[in-house]
């Protein structure tokens, strides 16, 4: 609050005797600042607002390879939800997303708690847990594709070691391929959650821990009943970032399975790209992308509630 007032005071020319006119206000005052902020304003108006509205609009047309189709109402959406490929993509994303979210959050938090126990070589371990996050989805997908390769990867290694019945063919198994995706995806993302959680844990007032010790509260109960509720903000932020990232899942699938076997690991982002650039069905692609957008906004709601909702415990 004070910040805004202070900036306003600075922005107003002190020497002006009469109030500056509207034109003056619009263009001359802080001209350099406005020039500097132009890219941001243009990006927001043209890309984030303009392009999104454009896509929403053309998702209601029957455009094929060029955006010139006629308005057809909800037809593209009806077609979308009756398409087998989309239904598989959406279900896959839902399954993968929920598992992935729960798994990365829980494992990430547990790792953060373990790292918080004043262990030796903490930064070394943190480096190890986080390095996958520095890799691209393509690299992650290809490495795990190789490890999970049924003929030469983990399966054959274990069989070679004597477990002749060992089976690990998830990557080629229609029913299990999503869990193969889950292994690669969580390997990639858990370190990120751990780092955020660790930052959250370290942000907890040290005196809270002291008070809990004087009160005789066991460490695990302190984490569960005192520290975890205090980290609500960090947890919601992490959930939103991880969740909205999951909706975009693309590179990893392209590299790991390319949607296969069959359609069994297709995801919405791939559906959009496919219809947009390969199948030449723009209206359908944009309808699918609009549904993705809606999904992201559903994920955003808890964050908006925390950030802009009634200010309570802080």
């Amino acid at each position: 609050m004070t910040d805004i007032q202070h900036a306003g005071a600075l922005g107003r020319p002190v020497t002006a005797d009469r109030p500056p006119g509207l034109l003056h206000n619009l263009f001359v005052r802080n001209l350099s600042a406005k020039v500097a902020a132009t890219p941001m304003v243009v990006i927001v108006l043209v890309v984030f607002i303009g392009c999104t509205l454009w896509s929403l609009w053309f998702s209601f047309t029957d455009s094929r390879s060029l955006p010139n189709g006629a308005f057809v109402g909800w037809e593209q959406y009806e077609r979308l939800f009756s398409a087998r490929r989309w239904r598989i993509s959406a279900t896959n994303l839902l399954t993968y997303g929920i598992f992935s979210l729960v798994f990365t959050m829980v494992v990430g938090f547990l790792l953060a708690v373990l790292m918080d126990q004043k262990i030796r070589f903490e930064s070394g371990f943190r480096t190890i847990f986080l390095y996958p996050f520095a890799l691209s989805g393509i690299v992650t997908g290809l490495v795990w594709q190789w490890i999970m390769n049924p003929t030469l990867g983990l399966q054959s290694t274990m069989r070679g070691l004597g477990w002749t019945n060992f089976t690990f063919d998830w990557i080629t198994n229609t029913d299990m391929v999503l869990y193969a995706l889950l292994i690669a995806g969580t390997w990639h993302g858990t370190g990120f959650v751990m780092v955020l959680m660790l930052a959250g844990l370290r942000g907890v007032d040290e005196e809270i821990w002291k008070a809990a010790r004087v009160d005789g509260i066991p460490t695990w109960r302190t984490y569960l009943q005192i520290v975890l509720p205090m980290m609500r903000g960090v947890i919601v932020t992490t959930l939103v970032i991880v969740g909205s990232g999951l909706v975009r899942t693309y590179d990893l699938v392209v590299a790991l399975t390319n949607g296969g076997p069959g359609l069994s690991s297709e995801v919405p982002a791939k559906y959009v790209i496919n219809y947009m650039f390969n199948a030449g069905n723009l209206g359908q692609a944009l309808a699918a992308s609009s549904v993705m957008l809606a999904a992201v906004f559903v994920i955003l709601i808890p964050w908006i509630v925390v950030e802009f909702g009634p200010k309570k415990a802080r």
Partner: protein
Amino acid sequence: MQSSVSIKDLSLNFGAVQVLKGLDLEVGQGEFIVLLGPSGCGKSTLLNCIAGLLEVSGGQIFIGGKNVTWSEPKDRGIGMVFQSYALYPQMSVERNLSFGLRVAGMPRDEIERRVARAAEILQIQPLLQRKPANLSGGQRQRVAIGRALVRDVDVFLFDEPLSNLDAKLRSDLRVEIKRLHQRLKNTMIYVTHDQIEALTLADRIAIMRGGEIQQLADPHTIYNKPVNLYVAGFIGSPSMNFLQGTLNGATQPMFVAEDGTQVPVSTYAFEAAPQGSSKAVLGVRPEHIVLGDVARTMPFSTEVEIEIVEPMGSDTLAWTRIAGQPVTFRADSDVLLHVGQKVLVGFDPARGSIFDAQSTNRL
């Protein structure tokens, strides 16, 4: 007096750094002890050691006659109040008070009884269902005290409990803590860097510096008979005036300032009669320097010129020089002083302090 908390040869090292150096401290039953010192003097560290939140490197701690050196904080019979309140933010006041007792598996009616009693003593009954975020700073600190209260322990530890509050609230809560002590009559150990808090609250003050206790005494002694230059300079605002010079021991001991000004100090109660001649520092508190006709009756008086005047409301602070060395003195606010004015000032060395310049100890 029976000893409530007893610390024997306590030391603490962080790596090669000695934070506490062989401390001894006996705290009587029901006594209010204040640990006072600048930041980094080890006062909070000492308190954390007593609480069991820091493991000691050497020595022993007894609480209520029991050796608790290896005990967990919860088993030491202490309650603690923190500077940041350290309330559990997601729990109501009532749960904040009762959480430790619940975890310990205490019967429910006993918990209710204790919470009700603490709430009554601290007058926080209307707040019991609120969350800490909806409380003011002063209310939060009361709840924090309440959390120590429900533990029904003999020893309360306070770690700078008022430092996060504004000046007005601080003085209100100060009085309340004093009242609480008078009512509960349990042992309290209180850490602060605020000398007013120390002087007003303490039965005895321990002034700490560099991990050692410099002086442990009641506030009056600390203020009037500081054991060394450090304590003398640390306590009192504005601080004590120091005149550098030489002390000539004889039947009529004489302090000779650096410019030759002679101050007869035969009225001063020396710890041991001074012998020969040695470098010394004469300390006089600003309020012990008197003005005008009264000054003439003092063992030492001189005419000085006033350099700066600071009206403080209740009194006026004047800056001048005695024997060429800067000196401040306090005058009644009705006495109008102005810069350049020549006035007669004087003092009785009996109310001052003389320190050895070498050892800085009181003579």
